[in-house]
């Protein structure tokens, strides 16, 4: 008896603005997403942005240790494992950023005294890692059926020395940039949920506006991907 191991096909989405050579301007790399690919977690997703790939698994709402339980909402935990080596301080800092974003969006009050755990594994890192982790976490939470008040996405942008903005930078562009900014935006009104910035920059407004425009493409991709998944049943 053959059994299907993957219930969902890979979805390949169009680039943000359509043009393939990435010149200065707003264009995102190729996206791909696959859901429900792991059998043990309650929800799982793999998100690909260009060559950056992150695998996410969500367990919850599950049992929580008495020392960690919160009486009126769910305890959200994020674990981020790098591709090689032991997790260090940078991973801890990213875990905290992702956790704050998820806590703003997940309806934890519906499941008090439970724990929701998001485990992220970096499969390959080619720039915009935090943004890719946020996207994978969102898709995995949706796959697990955790109640949320909105979807969220991560968009990274880099400002190089002559002030041009590049969205979804590769690792080479990140190294040469003067500043790298990552934003987490919600799907209802494109509000800012989290921002993580590094470097010298003066104009946040311009970067935020570009990120908000790019997030539309990410949310459209989410919608197509989820519609494709539910159309099979």
């Amino acid at each position, binding site marked *: *008896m053959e059994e299907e191991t993957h219930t969902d096909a890979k979805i390949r989405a169009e680039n943000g603005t359509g043009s393939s050579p990435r010149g200065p301007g707003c264009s995102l790399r190729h996206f791909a997403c696959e859901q429900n690919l792991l059998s043990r977690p309650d929800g799982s997703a793999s998100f690909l942005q260009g060559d950056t790939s992150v695998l996410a698994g969500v367990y919850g709402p599950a049992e929580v240790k008495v020392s960690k339980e919160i009486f009126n909402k769910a305890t959200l935990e994020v674990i981020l494992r790098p591709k090689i080596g032991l997790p260090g301080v940078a991973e801890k800092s990213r875990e905290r950023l992702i956790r704050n974003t998820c806590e703003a969006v997940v309806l934890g009050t519906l499941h008090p005294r439970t724990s929701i755990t998001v485990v992220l594994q970096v499969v390959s890192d080619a720039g915009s890692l935090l943004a890719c982790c946020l996207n994978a976490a969102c898709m995995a939470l949706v796959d697990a059926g955790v109640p949320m008040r909105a979807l969220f996405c991560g968009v990274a942008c880099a400002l190089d020395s002559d002030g041009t903005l590049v969205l979804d930078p590769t690792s080479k562009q990140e190294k040469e940039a003067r500043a790298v900014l990552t934003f987490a935006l919600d799907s209802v009104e494109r509000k800012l949920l989290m921002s993580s910035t590094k470097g010298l920059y003066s104009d946040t407004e311009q970067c935020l506006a570009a990120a908000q425009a790019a997030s539309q493409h990410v949310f459209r991709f989410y*919608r197509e991907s989820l519609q494709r998944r539910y159309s099979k049943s």
Partner: protein
Amino acid sequence: MAEPASVAAESLAGSRARAARTVLGQVVLPGEELLLPEQEDAEGPGGAVERPLSLNARACSRVRVVCGPGLRRCGDRLLVTKCGRLRHKEPGSGSGGGVYWVDSQQKRYVPVKGDHVIGIVTAKSGDIFKVDVGGSEPASLSYLSFEGATKRNRPNVGDLIYGQFVVANKDMEPEMVCIDSCGRANGMGVIGQDGLLFKVTLGLIRKLLAPDCEIIQEVGKLYPLEIVFGMNGRIWVKAKTIQQTLILANILEACEHMTSDQRKQIFSRLAES
């Protein structure tokens, strides 16, 4: 700047509330707001339309709509909290706007009052059993909530129990019983020896328990079997031989991903052999 204007104009459906009626059967995403039938008349196409304030009682006539799984009330609209297809059921009789809910695919069970589930007894403490039902905490089952409960006939640790929840909300530990409100077992209690317990998704259980499901009828024609479905995603199956039991378990697990033609093919192949 052209950028903010284009962001405002090209609004994804999630940023604007849609009438629930027009979205039935479609995939909805968390964060979308849905308008109930009587509100969409009030909100004209432009949004803010001035209407004279009517003083008669007719203006306040509200239809009572039940908000099912995946939806929450948000002001006077419905907020979608899970991804899935939006469904609606008309009220059987009397007033009311019916029930709206989101059909989502999930693996994790959350206890709901009245659900019949299969649990595994994990511990005895005081005069209750602790039963693992697959939720966030073990449910408690009293020694006395079986038909004909005596000191002798009690389940042991490791037994399978089929029961229903009498208390199941987010703030309290779930409690289950194996008798109905009249004191009779009604099919509940300890599940017998042998057989195989396996786990499937919650959506598959709902599909198999739907009134017009042909899968169970076809399976029944193949081999004589005993089968118990728990709403927590667990199925217990027992046939005459171990091989038949395993074949049935594999068929039910694979049902989720097969189309009905593939299923009929497999059944006909098995019926021949």
